């Protein structure tokens, strides 16, 4: 199955998780949302969307990246 090009930043009880759509588990959990966004942005090298969620699951920001 083709992996999605969407990456989500999702609140977890212990921090903020980076979760690529279509994968079973979050790749990593960071203490702060800012750190999670910074690391996720670096990882999107083939282009794709970074969807940043609020604590309640709704969308805070949707960033689209072009292929580097």
């Amino acid at each position, binding site marked *: 199955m083709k992996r999605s090009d969407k990456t989500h930043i999702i609140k977890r009880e212990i921090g903020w998780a980076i*979760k690529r759509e279509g994968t079973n588990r979050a790749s990593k959990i960071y203490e702060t949302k800012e750190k999670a966004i910074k690391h996720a942005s670096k990882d999107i090298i083939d282009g794709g969307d970074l969807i940043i969620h609020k604590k309640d699951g709704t969308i805070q920001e949707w960033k689209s990246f072009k292929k580097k």
Partner: protein
Amino acid sequence: MAFKRNVFINCPFDTNYHTLLKPLLFTIRKIGFTPRIALERFDSGEARFDKIKELLLESKYSIHDLSRIKSVNEEEYFRLNMPFELGVDFGCKLYHPNNKYRSNRFLLMEGEQYSVQKGLSDFSFADCKCHNNNSEQIVTLVRNWFIETGILNLPPPSKIWDEYNIFYSELYLRKKPEGYSRKDIVELPIPEFIQFIDEVI
């Protein structure tokens, strides 16, 4: 058959509560049950209590959230609808002539630990679960309660929570081209929200 899959929801209806209500509805649908809530349809000719009675009688499971019964501002009244509906539901379980209601299952929720014990001490025998007014925790709490009632083999709470977040991005993707603003999407009325959950799941 529907009776055994229906979950009556007794909770506040104001939009401030939607941050808890929406993940709650999603979790119930995700694990294969049907949420029944007075907001599912609007008919000004229908007496509210008649609607509630009908929903209660059609549901084996019920979730009562008593987290917003306390008045917050000066001069504000406390809210009695939710404890009242809990009482009606409990009465139905105990006294309805049809024995099928004896095995009804309840989930009682509160926002702060032991707050229900303070305000409704007659119910202190009941195990009240605290969601701390947190959207993620309500998912965990409801999913774990279903496990405790004997509904096994459910996805883990973190998976449901992640799917809820991803569901929101799907909602955004599909509704934005139709002209919905971000605010419209966040404030989507409950019947429309439930309909969209069914479309996605």
